[in-house]
């Protein structure tokens, strides 16, 4: 039997660095999501970047610490919400066609000058929805992989 105590978290230096960088990664991810219709990137890339902050948290602080902050049902609901918002926005223009950009064509919302943040109609909302879904899904997948692994140390 191996009685070596398994520490799942990392040392002080890593933790301190992680504390400083996790918010920055999150902000950068949020930037990618919200500028999805203007710059390269979008919902998926931004969501994955934000989930990267979660990965860093898991590695730096360990699985025990991550488990305390992870609620499976909440993330599951968030992921569903992301998908449903995307679908709902796509259905907004159903009177004309599925995926019809009603917000932009009719100038209801997000109808600013092209190239500005509040433009492109449903695209920013869809990017937010996709970002939410990807973030929640990747975090859930990562937690599942680290919690239910079959091999032992």
């Amino acid at each position, binding site marked *: 039997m191996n009685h070596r105590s398994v520490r799942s978290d990392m040392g002080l230096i890593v933790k301190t660095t992680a504390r400083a960088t996790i918010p920055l990664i999150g902000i950068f991810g949020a930037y990618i999501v919200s500028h999805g219709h203007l710059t390269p990137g979008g919902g998926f890339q931004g969501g994955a970047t934000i989930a990267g902050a979660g990965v860093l948290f898991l590695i730096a602080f360990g699985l025990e610490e991550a488990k305390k902050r992870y609620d499976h049902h909440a993330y*599951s*609901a968030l992921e569903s919400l992301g998908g449903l918002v995307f679908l709902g926005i796509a259905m907004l223009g159903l009177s004309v066609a*599925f995926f019809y950009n009603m917000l932009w064509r009719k100038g209801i919302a997000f109808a600013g000058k092209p190239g500005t943040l509040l433009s492109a109609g449903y695209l920013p909302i869809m990017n937010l929805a996709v970002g939410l879904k990807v973030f929640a899904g990747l975090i859930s997948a990562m937690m599942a992989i680290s919690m239910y692994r079959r091999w032992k140390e």
Partner: protein
Amino acid sequence: MNVLPFLIIVPLMGAFSMPLSSLLGEKARSAWAVLVSALTLAVASKVFYDVWSTKQLLVYTLGDTTPLGKGVGFPIRILWEVDLFGALLALIVAFVAFMAIIYSLEYMKHDTGLEKYYTLITVLELGMLGIVITGDLFNFYVFLEIMSIASYALVAFRNDTWEGIEAGIKYMFVGSLASSFILLGIALLYGQYGTLTMSYLAVKIGQNPTFVGKAALGFFIGGLLFKSGAVPVHMWLADAHPAAPSSISAMLSGLVIKVGGIYALTRIAFSIYGTSINIKTVGWIIILFGCATLIVGNAMAVIQTDMKRLFAFSSVGQIGYILLGIGIGLAAYGTKVGDIALAGAVYHIVNHALMKALLFLVAGAVLHQIGTKNLNELSGLAKRMPFTSFAFLIGAAAIIGLPPLNGFASKWLIYESSALFNPFLAAVAVIGTAFCTAAYIRVLFTFFGRPSEVVDNAEEPGKAMMLPMLVLIVAIILMGLFPWQINDKIMLPTVDMLKDQLHYVAAVIGGA
């Protein structure tokens, strides 16, 4: 109001909200899954009825009212284009998926993680529905991947044994390879012709059939034969279909290999390429693969001892018949023989979906009640589970092609046309059926033989598992009673629309 988008919206919404509904409890989730699939079936029936009664292509543009770009004469948007073939398959997909979901209510009751199961099965249905309605090559690829990835996950759903995981990983590797072939084909076509809309590609290829375009067809045929489990590349199917939960096996064998393989192949061959290439050669290539498939698949089925594996090999064999029919339809394009063969192939797709779904549901009932699918241990099952054995009898008789059941008419059309086209092919087809008969007679003897100890305490499954089997039996018998009426009213118009490439193009471009 056009109901076509709801064919995607309903299952998509169902899949996204499945985890939310399971927060309300198990009952709510089951009810939601059944409701969503029932609604999808209703929408699919409506779409089928619309297309069938008007005999008009249904064209739906995503995001705008017309597929054409502003001031240009060619389509720039993603569009869905449904002909009778697509609508028919959408109906069958929705029907079998509905049956599989009802069946799962009881069959999967003892498993965990069921919200994922129902989400995935709805996504699988969604992917297949998307494939049959799309008119855009890349949209097709996206739906193909949705379908494939859901089925990889579902094959490995029961991860308490290594069988499922191994089969899932194998399926994923082979499936990804096949998908990359198809993607490469799409990329070649896009690079060469600069469009992804199927009908506009048909125009472009007709004007200038280049070598790259033909190479793309080669990639499509390769990748789609992989996906449909044709013979040199059928090894994944024999692992993946038995390892999945039986309700999923029913969908994989009954639907996925046809929608993701045969349908796509037919659509690409007829609607995109059509007569702008040497259609006879393409037809013969598919005929050769079909012959190999129906001999090897049925022959391999004879020697299996695992019931579900036997059914999986039998699916390979039946795919052979369908490929043979489609191959003759291509090689004898424009003649009466080709029409008969194609009608037989389309008919057999529908029939085989019903019978193979029934057979896998039977296998699932046996596995659920007795805990084994090894045929050597199941002797004498008929005494304890008469209904299940009767269901098997019907399914087996239908798949062999006995007259009062639905398999007869479709197989007859395929035999007839192959005999008219080339008697050698008919001989091959009959030899395949001989093997198929041998395989199923073996199972039948096992079921009606002397009872063994294993089956002594067996009982019939509950209502939720019997009901789908009963509905499928009724469907098989009903379709068997009116074979030629169905052929004249549904299959021949389907073939006419499928062959009418000009109409397929004109419906989008509108004579511009």
